[in-house]
């Protein structure tokens, strides 16, 4: 407990310090990165095979379980990874406190909404609910 004794009485009373959550951001960025290596390679190959496809071929393709599952995983990993990465970019370059907080919140919410929209579209096509 040497570290505790180094702090001023006021510092100890206020009790501010590390929230002990710093590693979570770093760790989740790595986990999503590892997931995105095979997912993005699969996605590029899949898209190349769909060049020039009409809407029915795209729906047929998403109608198979494997592409549907992989697309949902890709959307989750992509937008999670994007929200973590963009947050770091904002924190590094935006120094006005209010603008920084506002942008981080907007990015988080937008990434969540985009992921939900993408997943909803995939599930709709996979279950044949599209018009």
């Amino acid at each position, binding site marked *: 407990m040497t570290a505790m004794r180094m702090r001023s009485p006021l510092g100890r009373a206020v009790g501010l310090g590390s929230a002990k959550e710093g590693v979570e951001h770093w760790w989740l960025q*790595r986990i999503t*990165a*590892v997931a*995105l*290596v095979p997912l*993005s*390679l699969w996605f*590029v190959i899949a*898209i*190349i*095979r769909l*060049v*020039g496809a*009409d*809407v029915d071929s*795209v*729906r047929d393709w*998403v109608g198979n379980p494997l592409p549907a599952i992989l*697309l949902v995983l890709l*959307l989750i990993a*992509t*937008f999670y990874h*994007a929200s973590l*990465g*963009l947050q770091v*970019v904002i924190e590094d370059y935006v120094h006005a406190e209010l603008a920084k907080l506002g942008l981080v919140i907007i990015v988080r919410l937008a990434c969540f909404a*985009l992921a939900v*929209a*993408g997943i*909803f*579209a*995939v599930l*709709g*096509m996979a279950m044949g609910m*599209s*018009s």
Partner: protein
Amino acid sequence: MRSADRPLSPHLQIYRWQLTSVLSILHRAAGVALTAGAILLVWWLVAAASGPEAYDGVADFLGSWFGILLLFGWTLSLFYHLCNGIRHLVWDTGHGLDLRSTYVGGWLVVGGTGVLTLIAWIAGISSWAS
């Protein structure tokens, strides 16, 4: 001198660029570009789920010169961020952090990005032509 007047680091007018710092900032730029690409992906999926008219609108846009430019930028950003991301994951294990390895790895990333982008576009164009 007020703090706002002080020169910022790096002082860009006299800064000597190196491969390592250029690749570092490009990793960020590519990441931001890929977010735009991900929005494009969601737009494409939602359009395909919505119906033929919506889907044809997206397909026409992606087939225009601007759409093809976007897709090319997306491919380049994706392969760059992927290759350099793997370089970052290797660093996270504590390996390849000496000066020589950062340059060897950096040039490998540049070469890998070029080769993968070229392969993807050759495959894409032949898939489109068939």
